[in-house]
């Protein structure tokens, strides 16, 4: 990792609070994403990981309730999703959300909806087919007929077609076989090395930290820990709670006392 002084803040979230109806989902979350890095948000089910991404994208109506979100120095909280996408953030939603009755090609074309540079779009098509060879073979097939892994590839490819500055990935490993997970993460790293900043939400802490520069751990709508990916991977609690690696075996086979707190 290069020295931190050269990094520039791309996304700055300050103290946002989000409600889903009456549910208090985010309880004051702050985070900044540095240009050119991969940042991973980890946490258990229901911790509010996806809610952070959805709030930033403006997908939850009238939220965030409090706090500010800045992208490249401009306030984006309260803006329409369509305008946020235009500023250069693409979001790969959880559960793929491809256009099922459009062909693979049409799906990708929709990804490039905001662009008019035909020659460049054609180049990007080639590049995406290079990243994801199975898509090329199914170019003219309805997206709904693809397998889960292929749909995930399509969903990522579609988001890339907009040439985002910042890419949000919401659980890209969900429902994929271990081999495919490996492959997808390799591609994510690859995309990042081509200059796209990535904010990743994952349950698979081991894989996520392996490719990330920074990591944050979310519990019950609050960050309880942040640091470089390397530090987090070394941390005893993270290893135990999120990676299932037990540092010391007790005679009875389970830990007999709680180390410190439970992150809240």
């Amino acid at each position, binding site marked *: 990792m290069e020295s931190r002084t050269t990094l520039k803040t791309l996304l700055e979230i300050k103290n946002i609070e989000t409600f889903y109806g009456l549910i208090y989902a985010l309880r004051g979350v702050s985070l900044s994403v540095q240009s050119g890095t991969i940042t991973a948000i980890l946490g258990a089910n229901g911790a509010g990981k996806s809610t952070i991404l959805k709030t930033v*994208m403006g*997908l939850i109506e009238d939220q965030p309730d409090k706090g500010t979100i800045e992208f490249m120095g401009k306030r984006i909280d309260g803006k329409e*999703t*369509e305008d946020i*996408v*235009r500023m250069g953030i*693409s*979001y790969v*939603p959880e559960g793929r*959300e*491809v*256009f*099922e*009755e*459009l062909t693979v090609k*049409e799906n990708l*074309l*929709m*990804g490039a*909806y*905001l662009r008019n540079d035909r020659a460049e779009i054609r180049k990007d098509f080639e590049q995406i087919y290079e990243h994801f060879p199975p898509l090329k073979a199914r170019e003219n097939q*309805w997206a*709904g*007929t693809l397998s889960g892994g292929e749909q995930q590839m399509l969903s990522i490819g*579609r*988001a890339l077609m*907009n040439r985002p500055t910042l890419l949000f990935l919401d659980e890209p490993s969900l429902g994929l076989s271990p081999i495919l997970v490996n492959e997808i993460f390799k591609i994510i790293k690859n995309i990042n090395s081509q200059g796209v900043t990535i904010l990743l939400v994952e349950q698979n802490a081991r894989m996520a930290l392996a490719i990330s520069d920074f990591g944050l751990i979310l519990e019950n709508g609050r960050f309880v820990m942040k640091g470089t990916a390397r530090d987090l991977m070394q941390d005893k609690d993270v290893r135990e709670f999120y990676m299932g690696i037990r540092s010391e075996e007790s005679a009875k086979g389970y830990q007999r006392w709680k180390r410190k707190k439970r992150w809240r």
Partner: protein
Amino acid sequence: MGELVQTLVSGIAVGSSYALMGLAMVIIYKTSEVINFAQGEMALLSVFLTYMVLEYYHFPFYVAFPSALAFALLLGFFLEFAVLRRAKEPNVLGMIIITIGLEMILMGFVSWKFGAEPKTMRFPLSPYDSLSLGEIFVSSLEALTFVVALTLMTVLFLFLRYSKLGIAMKATQQNKMAARLMGIRTNRILMITWGISSLVGCTAGLLIAPTIMQPYMMWDPMLKGFAAAVLGGMTSLPGSVFGAYIIGVVENLFGGYVSIEFKSAVAFFIIVLVLCIKPSGLFARHYVKKV
């Protein structure tokens, strides 16, 4: 034999105006899954305003008709923007009820402004001129309607299949959230859809008006157009057109050989039959979701 062929040909001719209404309804259904029951009355308003422009202000056809189409387009934009978009937490059923309300308001407005008595609309082609093909007669208006329906179908079909805007319309219907994530302004897409649909409906209205013109003139074609669209699977443009021909032909055959009184009911009998045998419609190519 000649009589039978004549019945078939007239059936297709009648079917052409149903086809136009069917196309108009399919376009809206394709982007929002809303069945627009105000389709006929939106066209009705455009047609009566054209009548006003022609009769009271004596504008020539080449001014009146294009401006009618332009008005229809704006009317579609306006209704979507001013009425449908205002619905809070919209769902499909609620939207359909709104269109029924719109239908009554528009119909009421036209009856109040122009009166319920039948009128005659001037038209460049007389509905009573006929072209003869051997021993078969078709009125020139019917021939025109036929050509217009097929042309519009082709244009719309190509538009939805190959243009970026057309694909964006389909994307909006299939997954609104994902469409917004692509930067598609879904509200604007819906507005455009309503505009185009209203335009197609208005075309149908203008072609029907020379033969029959009173505030109820669009109700029957609209229902038959809807029936045709259901027959075609509700999302298929060619499907709705062929559905319309089937309904037109069967209706005419039934009227000619069985009973003229129940002629109109036949369309709905066909729908029930089709829905029993092939519920997704004759032409729908619908992807069945894997769990």
